[in-house]
Structure formats: C-alpha cells, structure tokens
C-alpha cells in the first residue's frame, strides 16, 4: 500500500538524534516561550498558555540594570521550576560554557539556550552541541551566524534582537536580514553558491540545502525586545515560527494578562481584529530602553560570532 522506504531496523531506542532535537523545536512552533526566574513566574506562564519557559537567573532588563557577570541559573531554582510546571523547561548557558551545559543536561532541562544575554565564557569557541543529548537553541543576527551555529549542532535558531530593552527594532532587523539572506541564496545560480558559502563562513552543503529549501533546516524563532501582542504578531508576519519573550512579560504591569494576550496574538498573528481585542486593558508595558541610545559595549547582540 506504500511506496515509502521501509525504515532501518533499530534494536534499541535511539535518543539525542538530530531528528528528535530538531523535532522538539517543531512542536513549539506557533507558541510563546517566556523567561521566568522563579517557580511562581513559571506557573503564571504555563497558565497563560506558554509552550515552554526559559529559566534564568535574572531577566535581561535586570542584567542590564545591575551589570556584573551573568551566569547559568542556580540548580535549585531550575529544579524548582521543573517541578512547578508540566510544560518544557529551557535554561540558558553562557556562550562556550560547556560545563554549564553539562549541568543543565544533568538537571533534565528540555532545551539549552547558549545565550548572548549571559556573559560569554569563551570569546572564540561556542559549545560543541553535537556532544549533547539535550538540544540547543542559539541566537543569530544573519544567515552566516545561524549556519555556523547549526554546524556546531544547534537544533533551533532565534533572532537575537536586543534583549532587555523592550525595543523590537533589532529583532525586526535580524528577522528581515535572515529572510533577505535566504532569499538571496535562492536566487543564486548553483555555481555561485561556493563563493556564497565562503562569504557566509558556513559549510557549502548547508548553504546549498538552504538555497534549495528556501528556509533554514531548523525552526526559526524570534527574540529580543518583544513587549506587546503587536510586537509578537509583527515578528510572526516577518517569518518567525514562534516567539521568545524575555523581560516584556514580568517587567510589565500585569504579567498574567500580558502573557495570555501575547499567546493569543501569536496564534492569530495575521488577524488584526484579534490583536486589537487582546491588546486592550493590559496595563503598563515594560518601560524599556531605546536601542539607539545604547553604547556599543551595552549591546548584547554583538556577543557570539
């Protein structure tokens, strides 16, 4: 009854394959992943309809305000969050800090964000993500960066934006840039893909795959400055497959209500009537920082390469 190739027989269940890592991200599509720093916040996020929560020590807005070195969250806090909710729990590790990643895997987190929001632990190398059973998501500002992270084993990509600002402009720039880069590849004749790979500083096979498919081989979310339902919907219209919201929820006047509104706006991203309806009466948005006033040294998106 079928023309499909019979599967290769397997004697034992295989864990940590590229397919289950990338597949996990497919299941998050159309959803909102919310930054939380306590089990209570995690519960609010789950009740609002988040598809996952991101456990971290401080939300990016506080990292910005307080300065200092920002690290992986306390294992007790992560465990508390894992026990508080039934949805997937992600957690952040510093760029290049493979032992933080080992700890997070041992704690049972479902996804690791190797994140520029924390202080980098290695200014040359990212984590070898193939070495882990748990999947990784990484930030990118353009296609070359996204493909380098995928080469290192990232199973999901998110735009970097500028975390902790509540200013969506850099997320917009990064999403548009990623789309432009992908479209440009698709328009190139095959014999120009070799040079394109060189320029993107990414492996030719991956560049060719993107040129043929017209999309990344992994799920693409957006992050960095999303603070309102309209922000989330705009990023979805720009081609994001889902949304990370960091400080935007728990730095606002009514987190529970705003969280729920952003979830609804992400599902109905192309329906202005729904977005208008859910945007009413949300109380104050996070105050935010205009990205154009930031010093270069305060910009997180420049971390990672």
């Amino acid at each position: 009854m079928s023309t499909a190739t019979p599967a290769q027989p397997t004697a034992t269940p295989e864990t940590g394959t590229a397919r289950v890592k990338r597949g996990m991200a497919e299941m998050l599509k159309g959803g909102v992943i919310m930054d939380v720093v306590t089990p209570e916040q995690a519960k609010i996020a789950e009740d609002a309809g988040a598809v996952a929560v991101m456990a971290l020590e401080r939300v990016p807005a506080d990292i910005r305000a307080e300065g200092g070195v920002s690290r992986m969250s306390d294992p007790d806090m992560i465990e508390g969050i894992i026990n508080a909710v039934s949805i997937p729990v992600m957690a952040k590790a510093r760029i290049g800090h493979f032992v933080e990643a080992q700890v997070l895997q041992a704690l049972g987190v479902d996804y690791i964000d190797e994140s520029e929001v924390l202080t980098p632990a290695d200014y040359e190398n990212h984590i070898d993500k193939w070495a882990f059973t748990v999947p990784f998501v990484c930030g990118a500002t353009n296609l070359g960066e996204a493909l380098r992270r995928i080469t290192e084993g990232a199973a999901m990509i998110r735009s970097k934006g500028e975390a902790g600002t509540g200013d969506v402009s850099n997320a917009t720039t990064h999403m548009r840039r990623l789309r432009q880069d992908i479209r440009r590849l698709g328009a190139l004749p095959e014999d120009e893909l070799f040079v394109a790979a060189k320029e993107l500083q990414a492996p030719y096979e991956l560049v060719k795959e993107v040129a043929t498919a017209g999309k990344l081989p992994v799920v693409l979310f957006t992050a960095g400055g999303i603070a309102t339902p309209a922000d989330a919907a705009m990023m979805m219209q720009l081609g994001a497959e889902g949304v990370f919201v960091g400080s935007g929820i728990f730095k606002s006047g009514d987190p529970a209500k705003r969280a729920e509104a952003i979830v609804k706006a992400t599902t109905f991203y192309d329906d202005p009537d729904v977005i208008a309806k859910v945007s009413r009466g949300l109380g104050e948005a996070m105050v935010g920082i205009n990205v154009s006033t930031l010093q270069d040294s305060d910009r997180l998106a420049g971390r990672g390469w």
Partner: protein
Amino acid sequence: MAAVPTIGVLALQGDVREHRRALESCGASTESVRRPEELERVDAIVIPGGESTTMWRLARTFELLEPLRKRIEQGMPAYGSCAGMIMLADRISDGAEGQETIGGIDMLVRRNAFGRQVDSFEEDIHVTGLDAPYHAVFIRAPWVESVGGDAEVLGRAESGDAAGRIVAVRQGHLLATSFHPELTGDARIHRLFLDMVKGTQ
C-alpha cells in the same frame, strides 16, 4: 460532502505545516483550522503535535472545544499525533490543573509518560494495517495507559524500559499515535487515516 474530502489541521499551535505537507503528499486537500467557521468547512481533522495545554487553552478561549466535540460525536474522522493523541483521549493523567480534552477515544493517556526531552527517542515499531515496520519518532511523548472496549490497539513501543506501552490506537473513525509520522517523510500513517476518511464517506 464534497467529492474530494478537505482535511483540516488544527492550527492553534504545533507542527501544522508538517501534517499538511504529509497529507498533501498523499493527494489530499488541506485547510488550517483556527475558528469555528473554518471547522465547519472541513470533512476531517488532524490535531498536530505541540503543547497540549496551550492547544486546550486556545481551543477553549476561541470557542473551538465544543464544536470539535460535537463534530467528532457526529462522526467526523479525526487523527491526533502526540499532543493530538492527548486531545482525543477521554481521560488523561499528569495534565495541567483543570486540563480538558476534546475526547472521543475511550482511553487513558498519560502525558509526558516517556520522560523529558533527553528521553525522546526513535525506534521501529509494528503497526497493525501497515505492511512493514514503521520508524516512529517520540518527543516528550505520551503513552496510553489503558483502552476501553471499543478502542483497538494498533501498536506498542518495542524496546527499552517502555516496551509494551500502547502508542497507537484506533476507535472507529478516530486514530491517535504517541509518535510523529509527520516528521519522518513516511506517509503510511497519513494514508491509513485518509483511507478511514474515505471509508466514512
């Protein structure tokens, strides 16, 4: 009912595109369903993989839960993978507080039963009605604790600690799998469902 059935894919959240692609590769025509009026226009429904608590909350808020229950009671064929299996279960365990389902299949489904993401796995299983083993992908997957009289077990996990757990069930016009056939490029499960849809016409 139209000559060529239209298969709706519940598009509140999850891997909607992969299901649509799999169905279309079998020659089916598909529509995404987010609103009650869109549900009225389809002949069958697929509930994708995703986060079942998110789907439940959105289905309730956007008034899809009751219409879905009603259509399924009236005989609309439905197929659910993973979160979709949870949505089609009459009873669930380890759900979020107050979590409701659409229901339809007389079974008890345990959410996240296979464990966390580090336990997600792939393996070959035998599925009743398929000619050769099926390579099944399980992602933070549920399993079926038990089925009632009318539900037929189509497949079980075959290796590891979970060997013997029920992962595929059919009850009349309803089909559910713990695993994700939409991720493998092997469309035999979708074809099985489309044959069920044709059988009800």
